[in-house]
């Protein structure tokens, strides 16, 4: 009896994994419905909580690394039987590479312009048609001149005193907008490498200035591509992840200059000589002032 029930439950789980509903399964086993339902509903609850879809970027990067490694072994995709490499994947990869090259060539001169991700164009959204079009060098925002947003890096002193220099290279910054235009605003810093020993405590380094859409934001990411510290010799500083992330809501308004300082601190981990970087939420935040122009 128990074994029968285990098999029925198992079959229902297989069906749910294939996309069928709980009701479909229960209707096939009315005698067991009363005990099946709560168990199947708990599966649904667990799947909801842990469910996430890996980002396209991560998947693309991993795919490229995988195929590069495959090619390195002397197995080019031509040698792989056709049935194992779906043709759309090949074309998708080619298309992605071509688009990336075009993107670099076209958008590279306009790195100061934030990239809007998944933000629908809407008349009420503070994105002008000019901002939505591909930026040209003429309409670029020059860092240090105008704009409603400034991004700065600072260091809360912990173990930074151990270093002669500690250079971090930030390849990209992302702000999550939660206003009318929801999605990610991303920009590439004009100054990508910051020596944290030079920005301790009250000091900070402006790395980007420009316009971002007006409205509330909830989170800030910085993508750190390299960390190099110099004590007596060059050492590698560990990152908990290549993305340092702070959840701290703030608001951008067009008539104000909003400066967000992302504070990073370096601490020595348990073993001597090993250091780790982490975002310091308590020292990070926004300063706003009226625009003078």
């Amino acid at each position, binding site marked *: 009896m128990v*074994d029968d029930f285990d098999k029925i439950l198992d079959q229902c*789980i297989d069906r749910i994994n294939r996309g069928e509903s709980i009701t479909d399964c229960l209707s096939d086993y009315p005698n067991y419905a009363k005990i099946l339902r709560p168990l199947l509903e*708990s599966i649904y609850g667990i799947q909801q909580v842990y469910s996430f879809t890996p980002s396209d970027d991560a998947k693309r990067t991993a795919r490229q690394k995988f195929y590069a490694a495959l090619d390195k072994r002397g197995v080019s995709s031509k040698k792989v039987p056709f049935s194992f490499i779906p043709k759309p994947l090949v074309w998708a990869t080619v298309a992605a590479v071509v688009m990336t090259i075009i993107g670099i060539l076209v958008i590279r001169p306009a790195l100061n312009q934030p990239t809007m991700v998944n933000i629908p164009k809407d008349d009420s959204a503070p994105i002008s048609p000019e901002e939505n079009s591909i930026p040209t060098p003429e309409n670029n925002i020059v860092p240090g001149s105008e704009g409603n947003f400034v991004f700065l890096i600072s260091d809360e002193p912990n173990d930074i005193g151990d270093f002669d220099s500690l250079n971090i290279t930030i390849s990209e910054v992302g702000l999550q907008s939660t206003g009318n235009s929801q999605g990610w605003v991303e920009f590439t810093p004009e100054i990508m490498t910051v020596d944290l020993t030079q920005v301790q405590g009250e000091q900070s380094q402006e790395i980007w200035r420009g316009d971002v859409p007006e409205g509330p934001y909830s989170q800030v990411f910085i993508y750190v591509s390299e960390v190099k510290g110099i004590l007596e010799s060059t050492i590698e500083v560990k990152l908990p992840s*290549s993305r340092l992330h702070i959840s701290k809501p703030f608001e951008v308004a067009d008539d104000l200059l909003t400066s967000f300082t992302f504070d990073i601190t370096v601490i020595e981990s348990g073993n001597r000589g090993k250091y780790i970087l982490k975002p310091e*939420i308590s020292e990070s935040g926004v300063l706003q002032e009226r625009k003078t122009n």
Partner: protein
Amino acid sequence: MNSRNKIKEYEARLAGLYEEYYDRIARYVYVRIGNRWDAEDIAGEVFLKALKSLNSYREQGVPMQGWLFRIAHNLAVDYLRKNAKRRTVPIDSIVPPGNDDPADSVSNKIEYKRVNQAMKQLTDEQRQVINLRFFGGLSSKEVGGILNKKDGAVREMQRAALEKLRGIMGMES
């Protein structure tokens, strides 16, 4: 088939599994480590590691996708071991998935913690069964192959785990 041809066949099969299993492995790892970005990185690493270890792959009861989950399990264990000593990201910066709406984010966090606590009260094998079945999307037979258990034993663990979770989380019957 000589060993060289066999390796080539395995390489082709591994490439064929990438699209279908990358997401599942990332989810499986995410449930284990609780960090979605590192889970994505580890999922990519699983395929690279599998490629490097193809010479040692033996098709004995465990299909290749099961082998990938074994690699994922080992990498997740390594990750947790390394990170146990350096919990460096403050809790404020850990965000559960589906956090586009801040209001949702708060309720997601609460629900995430609740389910996570409940999962911790399962035995390691029960957690493995739940994870491989519901996030890896593997069949009981495949899970049995990975855990060296018979199908019946996996089904029994699965039911016991679900009953326990339901009890801990206070779900109404």
